[in-house]
């Protein structure tokens, strides 16, 4: 087999996987602190992409201003979602909460294209299109920058979780009752986690929007992000990093190597198969903590 091709596919796959991992980071953050699986994460990434485009194009703000503005706005949006919707669903069965997030996804998919128009929007980050060659491997500049940015953000999240604020959130995710009793403001920690999750979704939305244009299909990032979150462990942030790399590389290699044999689109199946394998072999993921149900 052509080693250069495999190398190139693996490298591109790793970078793309990191970009998906950014969305998964949001899912893990929310699950870690409030125990909710946020199926609206893809829609929030889409909203973030639209918000950035709105600031950059409609209001004409330069990029270095538009991006922080969008991040701040989406942080507030995440905060609001937690306050307005999830607060009322405390204690309900998991399936209800999943359904609420589905409902939010539909709502956001209606609001954003409705307000801003359905045509694909251009989000220009100023990344040059010219190819970059290392040996015989071509490295896609957009994916390179996207992947590195995602990796940086995920590492920042890991560092954050070792800081004081991070320890607060870890305490909340461990045991909410005990956190209350030592004086931690649990509601605020959860709301901040939702805000951060929305922020990371926005970053992902910006990076993906730069590669493919901003439209409703950004909300489809959800499935891959879920696969990564489950493989890495739904409550482990370093797991997101490793799982992102694994899922990205597997998908890329599958497209390159298995597709010609099978005759088509194995990419989507890779994510589903990874989920199934993980759940059957090691349900809590690579780094997840096993949940022991006590009688």
């Amino acid at each position, binding site marked *: 087999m052509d080693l250069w091709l495999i190398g190139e596919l693996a490298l591109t796959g790793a970078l793309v996987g990191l970009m998906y991992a950014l969305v998964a980071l949001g899912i893990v953050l929310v699950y870690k602190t409030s125990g909710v699986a946020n199926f609206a994460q893809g829609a929030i990434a889409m909203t973030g992409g639209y918000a950035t485009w709105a600031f950059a194009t409609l209001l004409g703000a330069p990029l270095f201003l538009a991006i922080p503005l969008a991040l701040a706005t989406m942080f507030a949006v995440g905060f609001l979602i937690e306050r307005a919707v999830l607060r009322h669903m405390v204690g309900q069965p998991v399936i209800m909460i999943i359904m609420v997030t589905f409902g939010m996804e539909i709502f956001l998919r209606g609001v954003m*294209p409705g307000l801003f128009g359905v*045509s*694909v929007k251009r989000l220009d980050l100023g990344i040059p*299109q010219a190819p970059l060659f290392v040996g015989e491997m071509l490295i896609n500049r957009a994916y390179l920058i996207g992947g590195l940015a995602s990796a940086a953000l995920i590492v920042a999240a890991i560092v954050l979780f070792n800081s004081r604020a991070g320890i607060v959130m870890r305490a909340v995710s461990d045991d909410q009752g005990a956190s209350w009793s030592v004086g931690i403001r649990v509601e605020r920690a959860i709301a901040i986690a939702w805000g951060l999750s929305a922020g990371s979704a926005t970053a992902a939305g910006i990076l993906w929007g730069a590669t*493919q244009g901003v439209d409703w299909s950004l909300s489809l990032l959800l499935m891959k992000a879920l696969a990564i979150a489950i493989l890495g462990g739904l409550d482990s942030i370093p797991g997101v990093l490793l799982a992102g790399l694994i899922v990205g590389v597997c998908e890329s290699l599958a497209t390159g190597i298995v597709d010609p044999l099978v005759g088509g689109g194995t990419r989507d199946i890779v994510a589903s198969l990874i989920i199934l394998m993980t759940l059957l072999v090691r349900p809590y993921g690579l780094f997840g903590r096993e949940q022991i149900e006590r009688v």
Partner: protein
Amino acid sequence: MKLDRRDFLAGTAAMTLSAAGTAPAFAQDKVVKIGMPMDFTRVYTFVTAEYAQGHRDYLTLINDSGGAGGYKILADITDHGNDIPRAIEAYERMKREGAVLIDPLSTPVARALVPRALEDKINMVTTLSGRSDAADGEVFPYVMPLSPNYWTQAGILIDYFRQVDKDLKGKKIVLVHIDTPFGKEPIPIYQALSEKLGYSFQTFPYAPPGNDQAAIWPQVRRAQPDWVIFWGAGVGQTTALSEAVRNGLKMDRISSSVWLSESDMEVVGKDACKGVIKFEAAAGGRDPKVIQAIVKDVIGKGKGAGPEAKVGTSYYNIGVMMAAIVAEGVRKAAEKAPNGPVTGPWLNAGIQSIENFTADGMLPGITVTAKDHQGGGRGRVARWDGAKFVPQTDWFAANQDLVWAEIKKYSEEFKKTGK
């Protein structure tokens, strides 16, 4: 009694239900009603808004100048969100209101409505989509593509390559397509032509919706093709083009189906993709006389159905094209039976007698017969020059014998097993 949240819910429900089922009432004669339930919100978002705008503007133009053959055409445009129950409800409702033509602009919906349209004798227009074998008017009397289907588009693209390269023997042609029935549809034609003309043909499917093609284009680059065709829709097209640019492929050897528009080129970067080719079914831009008439009489008088910036874009012009063909069909039907009751068969007879209709030079001459519902299968190839699509050839038809062999193959099967 304290108003609590349950009362609020009940009140909202009552208010919504009371507004349900209302429909605008039309009380005129000499009116042809057509129903256009389309997908504004789910999958076909990239084309529907502009298509509907073009359609509406043309109908306003026609109706303001007295209608087609004395008949005003009224279009009821709603959203079905690519959801079959909603589409069937819209179809039944429009049928009850007397629609004689339905335009769903969605392949799955068109497929689902085919049995009903054939049974109820209501004309169904499937623009550039739907069942490709519906071009066979004998098996599908009431399903009318009225536009080149994907097989025809494939045939014309290959013929254009042959015209440029003089001889395709030994060349390599690659198809990057979305891994759905729509993307796989032209493959039999490409394969048949590869045997006939001697080029080698390779396919690279990508998973729908196509926003992640990072693993496909390096392979395409390595295959070192002479010609690349990308066959997708919406975000699949912009991603494909961006990836092609980033992989350093030569733009003037890359071609697309009809689903490529100015907004796609803007997302990728207008200068970055200079030279890309696409298939054109109707003349683009604001040059055609019909578009100029619309700009003057409809937009100028403030009756435009959408933003003015979209007038003259590819999908807007396709909308105008289909509206023009339908209006011509009405005119012909009125010629045959001026007072005839407006029914499906009435309009059907009119559409099937359209001859060499060019809409003042915007279309290749469309001729619809009882056997050929495709309209002749003519199109042309246009190239992006950085600001607009410039036609490279005249209107021509190519490889129609191969296309019709495919059409007959599938329509025979439908005739055997359908109703």
